[in-house]
Structure formats: structure tokens, C-alpha cells
């Protein structure tokens, strides 16, 4: 006759044993093992922006919105272009009307609720454009702060969002120093540039790279020594944005100015 104590004991052991999921005992095939080991080390996507080549046409922003189905008229965008104008009095004026989706069609600087500012050509010391997108940081603060793990870094460095798991708390949006994240107007989940992950994994270029008529944007694999982008980043002088946050951004810039925010 089994005693009550023994019965309970055995039940607990039985339930605990049965609750070990079968998935935990999954067998790794040699093929998958190799793929997991090698993929981690073979690809690290990086981006290179040559600001000298950018003219602020906004084709990249348009292409991105269409490719990634960000509602065209919504005032959010995965990538955008900023314009910087330094005047002779030492002031810096910057704007990005509608993320430069339609390009910079007027010389007036957009000041938001303050209207706009017309700067005379002869007052300008220098002016240039800076395209922006997600930096796919090596140390991404957005991934760190996500309470449910809905945003994560792929082994190739790209930070992705799982739309089916994001709770929409907005902590990642707050955590990003570059302001690249926003809530998708349709899905109401965190949204960001993912280097057109669906395209680059098929060997295609990102939509913005393909749309840029001047070759200002390029994507590459920093781990491939023969990659032209990797060559430029490793052998020429490039800069990154907001280094002080310790995020180790992986979008590199040629011709970055100290005034770039």
C-alpha cells in the first residue's frame, strides 16, 4: 500500500519529469550546427553613406516607404535625409521636411511650428545633406530595453522587430538615441529600418541603395575583406554618429561634419 506522502512525492517527480519539453532534447544535425557556427562569423552587415554624393533628392525615402509598406503620407519613416545650412554668422540651421520624402523642393528651412526661414544664398557658408537610417548598433540599446524580447539582433548584426510579439510599450523608441524607431501606423508595433532584411538575404541591395541615383548609399559585409564597402571602411577615414552613447553604430559616414546631430 502506497502511503499518502509517497504518493504525493511520486506525483511531483512524475509531473516535473513530464514537464521537460521534448524540444529541449532536440538533436542538432551536423548541417545545422555548421550553419549556426559559420553564419555567426561570416556576415556582418554595415552601411556606408557618402554625404558628398547626396543631393537630397529623397528618392531613397520614397523607395523605402514603398518597399517596406510604411503608409506614404504618415509622418514617420524608416530612413530620412537631413539638410544642414551653416550661415556666415556661425548659426547652424537644419531640417528634414517630411523626412525629405519629396526631396528639398524649397530653399526655405522648415522650423516646424515656427514656420520657415529663408536664408539668402550669399549668407551661406556651407550646406550639405546627411541621409539617416538605423545604425544596426553592435550594442543596441533598443534590444536591451525591450521587456519581452520582441526586438532582437540577428547573428549578422541587423536588429529586427517581431510584430507578432511587440506589446507596444515604446521603451525601445525612448531608448534609441538616433530616433529611428516609431510605431507603425497600421500594426501599432515598434518599427524601424532593418536594412531591407528580406532583400539583402536574397543577395539584393536595399531599396534605398538601389534608388539612390548618385551612389551615396552602399551596403556591405564588414567581415568580407574583398567587399568594396568593407575596404573603404577599413582603409579610409570614416565617422559614426553619436559615438558617446556607446552603441557602436554600424552605419559609417564619409564627410561627416561636427554640426551633424
Amino acid at each position, binding site marked *: 500500500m502506497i502511503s499518502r506522502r509517497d504518493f504525493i512525492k511520486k506525483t511531483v517527480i512524475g509531473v516535473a519529469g513530464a514537464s521537460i519539453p521534448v524540444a529541449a532534447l532536440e538533436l542538432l544535425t551536423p548541417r545545422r550546427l555548421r550553419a549556426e557556427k559559420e553564419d555567426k562569423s561570416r556576415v556582418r552587415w554595415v552601411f556606408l553613406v557618402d554625404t558628398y554624393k547626396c543631393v537630397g533628392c529623397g528618392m531613397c525615402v520614397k523607395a523605402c516607404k514603398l518597399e517596406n509598406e510604411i503608409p506614404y503620407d504618415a509622418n*514617420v519613416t524608416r530612413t530620412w535625409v537631413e539638410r544642414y545650412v551653416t550661415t556666415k554668422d556661425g548659426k547652424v540651421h537644419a531640417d528634414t521636411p517630411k523626412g525629405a520624402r519629396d526631396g528639398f523642393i524649397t530653399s526655405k528651412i522648415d522650423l516646424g511650428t515656427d514656420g520657415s526661414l529663408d536664408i539668402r544664398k550669399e549668407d551661406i557658408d556651407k550646406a550639405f545633406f546627411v541621409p539617416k537610417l538605423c545604425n544596426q548598433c553592435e550594442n543596441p540599446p533598443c534590444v536591451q530595453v525591450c*521587456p519581452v524580447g520582441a526586438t532582437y539582433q540577428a547573428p549578422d548584426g541587423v536588429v529586427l522587430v517581431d510584430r507578432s510579439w511587440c506589446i507596444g510599450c515604446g521603451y525601445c523608441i*525612448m*531608448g534609441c538615441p538616433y530616433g529611428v524607431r516609431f510605431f507603425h*501606423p497600421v500594426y501599432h508595433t515598434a518599427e524601424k529600418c532593418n536594412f531591407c532584411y528580406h532583400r539583402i538575404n536574397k543577395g539584393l541591395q536595399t531599396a534605398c541603395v538601389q534608388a539612390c541615383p548618385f551612389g551615396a548609399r552602399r551596403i556591405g559585409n564588414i567581415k568580407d575583406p574583398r567587399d568594396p564597402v568593407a575596404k573603404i571602411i577599413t582603409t579610409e577615414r570614416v565617422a559614426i554618429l553619436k559615438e558617446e552613447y556607446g552603441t557602436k553604430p554600424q552605419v559609417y559616414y564619409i564627410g561627416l561634419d561636427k554640426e551633424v546631430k
Partner: protein
Amino acid sequence: MVHGELWTAKELFVYPNEYIYWSVQIVMYPFMTGLVAGAFVLSSLYHVFGIKQLKDMARFALVFSFALLFAAPMPIVLHLQHPFRGINVFMTPHFTSAIAAFGIVFSAYGAIVASELWFLYRKHFVDIALPLKEKQDKTLFEWFRFIIFCTLTLGVYDVSEQSLKRDEKAIRVLAAVGIPVACFLHGYAGFIFGSVKANALWMTPLMPVIFIMSAIVSGIALCMLTYIITMEIRKFLASRKKTPYQMYQSREELKSAEINVIKMTARYLLFFLIFAISLELLDLIFRGYTAVKSWDVLRSVIYGRDFTDIFILQYLVGNLIPFILFLLPGLTIRRALLGVVLVIFGVFMMRWNVVIGGQAFSLTFAGYMHYHLPIIPHDWETFKEGLGGALAIFIMPFALFWVLIKIFPVFSFKESH
């Protein structure tokens, strides 16, 4: 419409995706958790440190803390874009995130408050359940009452002297454990903000400590406010002689008891208020003195755009005036009432200035964002993240308290414990 666009006005150079994503509900969240923590600490002052004068307040504060506990996570639920996925935080907590542990810390704290309440009211449950159990032909209402209180006893009917002594010990232990947990619960809310390195205003290690101090201040103030209101109602009832409220003491007795409790509690309020203000000023001075890259834009926000919110509404109306009101000799109930209302308002403004103020400037440090609180809602979103939603959250604990005191009477029995 993009989330946040409706209530955000952008000025000068702001990144295209920047909006005030954390709106009034995120102001309410630390405000409400702060009240929970503060109320609990107040009740613990009696149970742990044996401050006898707070005896009346202690039981009151504990029940109120329990009522607040249910309201505290509501702002987050209203804020989430996918509220029904909120459960994901429990299912796949990602522990590098400060929010991930919220569920765990919160439930642990809730369990402590609930068990402390149980020990405190166990005798009361038994006193009600036992006679009902023996009573034949119960009315429907009595059945209902019987089932509730019988369940609440958890099957323990032992109310001997010895077991009540053990209860008291358990209460003391729970209250003692509860203090650090309450501080952790709220310090941790401060950490959620303080650890955002992208936000120049939020990022300071002082944030959790500032949050704890102001939490205790607001919790004590709210307990005092509710205490005064309920005492006024009791006085009113006591003055109506023909009412069946014989259990109430006379009006004069109530009045002297009330002012004593208020005076004593006000002392602790002042003590924590001094701590809170010192820390906040330290933070401000330090920022100005070190003047790192972000200081230019912070200064323009603190001393310019948000001057009224910070210096007039928070520091002057919410801190300095009540400080003087409490310090002046001969504290009266009316003055205390005004004081605590101002203190609660001040703490609310502090939360507001942190949450909304932290988003008042752009990540570019070259632009600003203005928040326009939606007052008249025209859809669900403008209601829940507008004045209506915030008020609903604020009223909720009072409504809950009204229900809870039917089960956990905070005044009725003349003397038991």
C-alpha cells in the same frame, strides 16, 4: 495618424520619427506606484518601528495601499499599443530590460501587502464568519457575507491569545520585508527612466532615489488627505445623533484624535519632503555645474519653456508653500488639508516634468516638442491617453478603497489590536 502626432507640436529641428510617445499615462504610472509605496511605508512606520502615534493611520494606510495596488498597473495597460499582449512580459521576460521584472516585483509586493492585511484582519474575519456559520436560516445577504468572510479566513478559526501574538509577529516581519520591497518597486520605476541613456534629462543615477523619496512624500500626503476626508464624514455622521452609527465616538473625541494623527504624520511628511527636494536640487545643480553637451538644450527647457511647470507649479506651489504651511505653528485640519493637496499636486508635477519634460526637447538637441494633453476625447486613443484616462486612473483607488473598507474596516471597531 501616427501615434503621438496628435498631441505633439514640433519646433525647430526634430527628427521625423520623434513624437511624445510617453504621454500622460506614463506620468500616472510612477505617480500611482509612488502612492502605493508611500502608503505602505507609512503603515510600516507603526508596525516595524512601533511609532504609536501612527497606529490609527497605519491600518488605514495599509488598506489604502492595497486599493492603490490594483490601480498602479492600469496606466501601463492603457498606454500599451497592444494591451492584450501585456501578458507577454510574464511569458518571455527579457531581463536586460528594466520593465521586464515589473510583473515579478509587483506580484511579490502585492503578495506581501495581501498577507499582511490577512494577518491584521484575521480576527475580524473570524468574528464575523463564526456567528454567521452557526446562525440558522440565513438571508441571502447573510449567505453572501458568510461565503466571503468564510473564504477570507482561509479555514483558520484559531483566535486564541497565543495565535494572535504570532499574527502580530508575522505582521511585523511582513512590514519589515515590505519596506525594502516597496522602495524597490518604486526605485525601480525610477530606474526605468534613469537608465535611458538616450534621454539627457532622465539619465542620472539619482533618479531611483529621487523617485523613492517623492513617492513616500506623495503616499503620506494621500493617506493624510483620505484620512481627513473620512474623518470629516465620520464627524458629520456623529453629529447626526439619530443615526444608527452608535459605534462612532462623539464629535469632539474624533476631532482631537484627528488633529493628533495629522500632526504626527505631517512631521514624517516634512522629513521625506526635505530629502526629496534636496536630491532634486542636487541633480539640477550638478547638471548646471558639469554642463555637458546636453546642458544647453536642458537649460533652455528647465529655465525657459518649462519654467512655470518646474519652478512655479512644482517647487513653489507643490513644495515650498506646503512646507511653510506645515512648519507654521498651530497646525489646523484645514491648513493640513490644503498642504497635503498641494504636496500631492507637487509630486504629480514632478512626475509630469520628468516624463513630459524629458520629451520636451529633441534628440537633436536643436529642437523642441510641445505636449498638448487631449482634453475632449474624440476617439478611444485620445480618451485613454488624455485627461479622461488620467482622471479615471486617479479615481480608481478611491472607488476601490470604498469597496475594500466594507471587508477591511479601517475605523469601525473601537479597539482590537
